[in-house]
């Protein structure tokens, strides 16, 4: 019998009407390293969050060693011997390794005081038991990323977990650090632990796992012994057959270059791998340039750089021939650059503010005479946008009370009102239902008809393939392919570029 069984797990996020898990059956054998792969939004993270007690399933059951269990919180998961390493570490940099590891289960003196020595001893004991060489007295702030991850694993082992869940553990690591991590994982397996590893990287699946579960659009589409599949087949399973979205894109003569990036690079201090590595791209008027890539390969950084919220390390950005590399976001707004961000709940809107206040963030100067708002003009503006974009929600209520689709419509309405010749979209339909997505696709195509230059960043290949005229693929911060989106381009081919299985020779 399988060590862990999840049966018929169903999870609906009502805010945006997305079925994140649709009757998912998932099994892990005792003492195996099991990979879970899928595109962004396939439902991997939701499934793992349910297993770790961070989310609750609407339907379905979890069986551990054949016994049904209820996991309502991470604390209960921890009691059942389930531990998780999150993609973003949850460590306190000012604390030592020992203090971080014992946090929540501290050895105490006289029932009240933290037993520092005891903590160090306990952590050292656990580290030795599993063959980690690490000094528990070091402060976490002084560690490398790889070592921090080790501390996270140590934290789980200290709690005597038998099942370890790792959420994209390699996305922040260098090659050597990945080697070390894999060696650690193999060691854990050798002593009887079970590991679930979520990843996008197919090479790693082949290297580390015994079995692999492939998810797509909230369902499990395949479970295979790793030895019996190759990367191409996995890639095909992950992206699936191209769903033909009902979008018609008429041929159009493209205009002059509106936005241009020349050898744009972004590198953090102390990191050897640049986040963006000499990115060149051009967007013409009336053209949609789609940039595809898996999370962690530079899309988010490209978004920050083009929107002026982050400074490039080298290279330049030109808008209508003017160098805007060093412009602040205020100056970019004055030039009329519009931008629909991926993080629409934090960057794209202010949830406690009203819909109206959200609608005017970039254009409120227009409604002011002598420092004071023109109330009637404001209300008229808000009324027009609400009607034109069929936003369901009164302009006077806080935007946080609206559904995800309606929030995105407010953002879209605001940005399109800026009458610019360029607009940047990042993950415009992420997490939205079909109706809202189609609405947004229509608006994007309308922009193209009006001769506006559109840069579309998305990890959703279907979206890019149905909208973009030109398709760029990013992998590890570099543009690895530049493809004309003609009938000859297949989703499989683009998928192989995205996953780093193929690279254009230049």
């Amino acid at each position: 019998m399988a060590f862990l069984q999840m049966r018929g797990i169903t999870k609906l996020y009502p805010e945006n009407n997305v079925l994140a898990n649709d009757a998912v059956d998932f099994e892990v054998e005792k003492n195996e390293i099991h990979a879970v792969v899928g595109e962004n939004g396939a439902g991997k993270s939701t499934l793992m969050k349910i297993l770790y007690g961070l989310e609750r399933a609407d339907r379905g059951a979890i069986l551990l060693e054949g016994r049904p269990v209820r996991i309502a919180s991470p604390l209960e998961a921890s009691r059942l011997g389930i531990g998780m390493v999150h993609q973003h570490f949850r460590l306190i940099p000012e604390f030592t390794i020992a203090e971080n590891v014992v946090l929540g289960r501290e050895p105490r003196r006289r029932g009240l005081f933290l037993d520092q020595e005891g903590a160090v001893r306990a952590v050292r004991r656990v580290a030795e038991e599993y063959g980690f060489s690490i000094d528990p007295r070091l402060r976490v702030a002084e560690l490398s990323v790889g070592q921090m991850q080790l501390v996270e694993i140590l934290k789980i082992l200290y709690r005597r977990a038998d099942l370890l869940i790792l959420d994209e553990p390699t996305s922040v690591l260098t090659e050597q650090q990945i080697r070390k991590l894999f060696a650690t994982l193999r060691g854990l397996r050798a002593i009887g632990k079970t590991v679930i590893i979520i990843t996008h990287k197919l090479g790693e699946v082949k290297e580390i796992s015994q079995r692999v579960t492939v998810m797509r659009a909230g369902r499990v589409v395949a479970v295979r012994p790793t030895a019996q599949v190759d990367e191409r087949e996995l890639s095909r399973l992950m992206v699936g057959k191209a769903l033909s979205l009902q979008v018609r894109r008429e041929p159009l003569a493209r205009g002059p270059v509106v936005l241009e990036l020349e050898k744009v690079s972004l590198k953090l201090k102390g990191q050897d791998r640049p986040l963006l590595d000499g990115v060149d791209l051009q967007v013409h008027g009336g053209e949609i340039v789609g940039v595809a890539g898996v999370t962690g390969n530079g899309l988010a950084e490209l978004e920050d750089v083009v929107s002026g919220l982050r400074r490039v390390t080298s290279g330049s950005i030109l808008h209508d021939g003017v160098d805007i590399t060093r412009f602040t976001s205020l100056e970019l707004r004055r030039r009329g650059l519009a931008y629909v961000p991926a993080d629409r709940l934090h960057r794209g809107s202010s949830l406690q503010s009203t819909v109206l206040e959200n609608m005017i963030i970039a254009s409120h100067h227009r409604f002011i005479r002598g420092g004071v708002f023109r109330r009637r003009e404001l209300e008229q503006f808000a009324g027009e946008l609400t009607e034109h974009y069929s936003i369901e929600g009164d302009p006077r209520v806080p935007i946080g009370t609206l559904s995800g689709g309606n929030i995105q419509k407010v953002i879209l309405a605001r940005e399109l009102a800026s009458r610019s010749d360029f607009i940047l979209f990042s993950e415009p339909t992420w997490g939205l239902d079909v109706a809202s997505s189609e609405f947004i696709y229509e608006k994007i195509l309308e922009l193209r008809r009006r001769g506006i230059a559109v840069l579309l960043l998305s990890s959703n290949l279907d979206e890019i393939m149905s909208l973009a005229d030109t398709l760029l693929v990013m992998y590890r911060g570099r543009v690895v392919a530049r493809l004309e989106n003609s009938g000859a381009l297949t989703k499989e081919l683009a998928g192989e570029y995205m996953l780093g299985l193929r690279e254009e020779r230049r």
Partner: protein
Amino acid sequence: MKWRSRDSFLAGAAGLAITLGISFLIAILLILLLSKQPLATIYYFFIGPLTNKYYLGNMLNTAVPLTFTGLGIAVAFKSSVFNLGGEGQVYSGALAATVICLALPQANGYLGGLAALAGALAMGAVLAGLSGFFKMKWGTDELISSFLISTAVGFIVNYFITGPLDDPGNNLLASFAIDKRYFLAGLFPPSKLNVSALFALAAAGLVFFLLYYTHPGYEMRMCGLNREFSRYGGINVSAYVVLPMLLSGALHGLAGGLAILGTYHMAVKEFSFGMGWNGIAVSLIARNHPLGVVPAAIFFAYLDAGAKAAMLHSDVTFEIAAIVQSVIFYLVTAQALYNALRYRRRAA
């Protein structure tokens, strides 16, 4: 434009009324336990401040500086900027007003008074603005720097009051008295209530208008609610650390200046103690809404006056009065905090 839905406001008001009722009940229970003449105590505590013109007027007069400091805190908090230097800003504002009045013995009463208030305003604005400037320039935490500057300034003001400005003619640790021509007109004799109360009402209206109807007000509130969103929208976010601090300091400085011109007529050592800190409490009760600051300040002053009346007329000691006062206050603040937190959680 209407920025907030009416329902949530009504729900908040109902909640506050219930909390008030409960806290008054607890206060009455406490008095029954601690006082030998509970009926008299209850009477003086709750009705006392309203029984005659003198008490009523003085109570309202106590609310005046609290309105200014409460507004000062509300402006800062609305912008997510923290000004903990209110004490020093009020005190130094008072000193500035006193010095200007003493330096201009011959001036026209209105002009000299205006100059004194302008000086008080500028003094507070500069002190608080410094913290905002440090934050913008070097990222210094304004919460700490404003507190430290204020504390240091307090000692300097003490030096002036007990040193160069000390009037050997009076037996107080106080400066020379300012000339009568600068006194603000009384409104409600024999109490100390004076026209500064009207200034307080006007200030509340102005701050409300500024925050909700003007360009800088909108940008300040947006920066306060979500800095990243504001930056994305093209607002110069670093400026909105300095501006709210300047405004906050100006309001605190005015509180001090008006207290001198309207009530004290001389700078007495540490006379303004508590005005700054209590402003934070007032703003908290008002949920940082400028129009809520006025009733919140009056409520605070009412509790204060009730405690004093009860001490004067019944067997209640200072400690008991303070306990009863703090119980009521604690519950009301907790309610305000709870509302604020719930609001934040729902939005997150």
